[in-house]
């Protein structure tokens, strides 16, 4: 590495974060909150047929990672153990790394973490390149303290060191006896901080540090000033490289975690296109690229947006939504094609950008040789596609299903919900007791209409009534079915909600109606008649 390169990095500041008990603390964090302390105190892995401790919870004296389970049980008979799930550890560490992006966009996983190398130790580490970020958190000391405090709050034992190079920061975080969880090595003081640390803090192979220790070379300062050539000849190039990296003579890059790539594809054309066939082809190509990626990730699109960059220098958008995750290019194209008719390409479109704004998990469906789904849900996909197409053209609120509401008032016993918004609750109507023994009319008027009715006695069904200018003579009637307003409505809105007596009536010609009488005569209310629905 040239001197120029290292000098331009002179201001680099890096945090090495070490979570020594990551494996067990992650399990404790995920344990149900109702039973704290039930999480296992150690995790196990098999090595050559032996069960050994891969990670140990803090505060267990005498137990160290790498110890055989039998030995550990001898010391701690009630030791609760679990199998080590390195994949879950990796996922949790990834998530934690993304959380650390609150401090800096450059966060990397420490490749020496146990879950990454599948080694013993149950620890994990992160790098944070915080160059130029510390002032946002009130200085370096405050930033390191904040990081450790928050992690402690999350249930992790954390040690952080902020130093000039990853090497120094790592060495101090892992090896130094820290009074607090966090320490800041001032700029330029790295080598001094390193001097008293054991050679293993340089991240060299254990065999190297053990051999050096046998020769009496125990700390970094012991080897720092030795002639480099014989040292490298005897112990390999790595030792020298680690020394140089720690001192800052050799740049040590960290590979920051890439943020999740957006589901976006772009197609730039040398010439603007305006013909519908060309636009269709471009859309097809973009969809294929997007859907191939989604296929691999077992995901599907819920909302898709296409931007058309027109040659005039402006952009047109269109957005389509689907009721379930879709990754079939043909189905998506059909949704988009609905809107392409209305797209004005102007002088032409030279860039297409397609982005899946909402992506959800969707597992592959196994098909038979003819391409139809093998599972019992045959044709369900086609119906879902249809609902999507309808909703995209007519609007989501126009494609609806009916849902029951728990009310015995016929006016508000059901409501329309979008059929797109996901699966409807199955059995909702059966739960609501539908079909009920009390018959309901096939069509309900939006608003009950007053009718002029004549009843022989106050409590009787009407003998005749007049509705919308036509007289009906009633031949048969059934009822009444008394429906009282909800108790809170009956008392708050006087007059607005009154007890109704519903009658099913049939006029002499056979037409069947649902009439009700509102108001009870014995309460001194004047009865009024309304027509509310039509029976089939």
């Amino acid at each position, binding site marked *: 590495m040239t001197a120029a390169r290292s000098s331009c990095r002179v201001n680099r500041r890096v945090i090495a974060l070490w979570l020594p008990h990551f494996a067990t603390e992650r399990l404790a964090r995920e344990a149900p909150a109702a039973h704290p302390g039930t999480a296992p105190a150690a995790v196990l892995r098999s090595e050559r047929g032996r069960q050994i401790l891969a990670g140990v919870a803090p505060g267990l004296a005498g137990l160290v990672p790498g110890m055989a389970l039998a030995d550990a049980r001898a010391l701690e008979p009630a030791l609760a153990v679990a199998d080590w799930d390195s994949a879950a550890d990796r996922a949790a560490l990834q998530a934690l790394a993304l959380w650390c992006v609150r401090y800096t966009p450059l966060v990397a996983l420490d490749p020496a973490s146990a879950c990454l190398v599948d080694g013993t130790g149950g620890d994990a580490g992160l790098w944070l390149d915080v160059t130029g970020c510390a002032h946002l958190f009130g200085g370096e000391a405050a930033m390191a303290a904040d990081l450790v405090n928050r992690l402690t709050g999350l249930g992790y034992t954390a040690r952080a060191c902020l130093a000039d190079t990853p090497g120094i920061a790592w060495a101090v975080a892992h090896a130094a006896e820290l009074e607090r969880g966090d320490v800041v090595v001032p700029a330029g003081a790295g080598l001094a901080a390193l001097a008293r640390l054991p050679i293993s803090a340089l991240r060299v192979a254990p065999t190297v540090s053990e051999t050096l220790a046998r020769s009496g070379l125990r700390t970094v300062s012991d080897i720092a000033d030795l002639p480099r050539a014989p040292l490298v000849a005897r112990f390999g190039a790595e030792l020298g490289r680690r020394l140089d990296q720690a001192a800052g003579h050799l740049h040590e890059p960290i590979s920051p975690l890439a943020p999740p790539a957006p589901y976006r594809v772009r197609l730039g054309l040398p010439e603007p296109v305006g013909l519908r066939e060309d636009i269709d082809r471009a859309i097809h190509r973009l969809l294929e690229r997007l859907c191939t990626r989604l296929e691999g990730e077992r995901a599907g699109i819920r909302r898709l947006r296409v931007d058309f960059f027109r040659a005039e220098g402006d952009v047109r958008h269109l957005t389509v939504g689907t009721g379930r995750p879709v990754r079939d290019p043909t189905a998506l194209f059909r949704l988009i094609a609905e809107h392409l008719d209305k797209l004005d390409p102007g002088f032409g479109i030279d860039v297409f950008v397609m982005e899946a704004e909402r992506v959800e998990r969707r597992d592959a469906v196994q098909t038979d040789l003819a391409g139809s789904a093998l599972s019992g849900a*045959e*044709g*369900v*996909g*086609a*119906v879902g*596609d*249809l*609902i999507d*197409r*309808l909703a995209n*053209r*007519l609007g989501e609120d*126009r*494609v*609806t*299903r*009916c849902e*029951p509401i728990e009310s015995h008032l*016929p006016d508000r*016993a*059901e409501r*329309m919900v979008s*059929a797109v918004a996901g699966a*409807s609750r*199955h*059995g*909702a*109507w059966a739960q609501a007791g*539908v*079909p*009920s023994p009390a*018959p*309901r*009319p*096939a*069509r*309900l*008027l*939006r608003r009950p209409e007053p009718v002029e009715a004549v009843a022989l006695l106050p409590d009787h069904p009407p003998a005749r009534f007049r509705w*919308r200018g*036509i007289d009906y003579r009633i*031949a*048969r009637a*059934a009822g009444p079915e008394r429906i009282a307003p909800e108790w809170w409505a009956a008392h708050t809105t006087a007059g607005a909600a009154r007890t109704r007596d519903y009658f*099913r009536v*049939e006029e*002499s*010609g*056979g*037409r*069947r109606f649902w009439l009700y009488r509102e108001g009870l005569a014995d309460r001194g209310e004047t009865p009024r008649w309304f027509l509310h*629905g*039509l*029976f*089939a």
Partner: protein
Amino acid sequence: MRDPIEASETTPDLATPDPGIPDLTALQAMVRRLERGTGEATPAHGVAFGCPGVDAALPGEGLARGRVHEVVGETRSEVRDAAAFGFAIALLSRLAPDASTILWCARSANVLGGTPSARGLAALGLDPERVVFVDAEDEADRLWAMEEGLATAGLGAVVAEFDPARRPQATASRRLQLAAEKGGVSGIILRPRMTTPAGAGDRMPIAVETRWRVAAAPSSLASADLRPVWDVALERVRRGRPGRWTLAWQADGHRFEDLATTPANRTGSGRAAAPAESTAPAETPAAASEQAA
């Protein structure tokens, strides 16, 4: 020049036997092939109505699946009764396979006639969970939605309500019929009677498999009071015989019950106007027997 769609309907003069033609069956088969354009001669066996009288009038002894049927109300709008609506639901319950989704293209502007009530659908034997309502104000949108639905294999059935004056015309109905044949989904066009005098426009031929005219009938004919009972006239049917029955609907068993069809039982109906189907081919016994052969 005869309109091909009109020619495809069973009209009296087509059905009248011509002594010069030796083999009527062969000719009919040819006409069917021309109609389909696929060589498939007869539709698959339909869904039996459950009433021998009605089934005998229908080709294939039942109502054809994957075809469009038309249900016409007796009154000029749904304002006065829901008989045609109920009959359409009854047809649906028989036509749509169990638990399949049903697309209902409603007319939201139809405020006067009320809105379909889920509990009412359930009372007629149709699980409201299965119904997806499509609210399309525009006729073109409603036709499009119906056509899309009919072409979607896996859907149970499609119902579309139409304005009497703006029901699908010859071309549109032919498109619907083709879409239904493609997807194998049954469709029902539900509309009130035309407002023109004597329903003259009603007889304008459109490509539907059957057309039913439905009016409410007194439930005194049925076993229980206030049951759905309808006066059902099969006005137009391909390769079948028009007829008229009084049917009661039993929601729990999804069953039609053919009440006695003798005129004596119909006197109590008190229907205002005589139905305008006096020219129905069923009146021609010769034609009827030929059709049966």
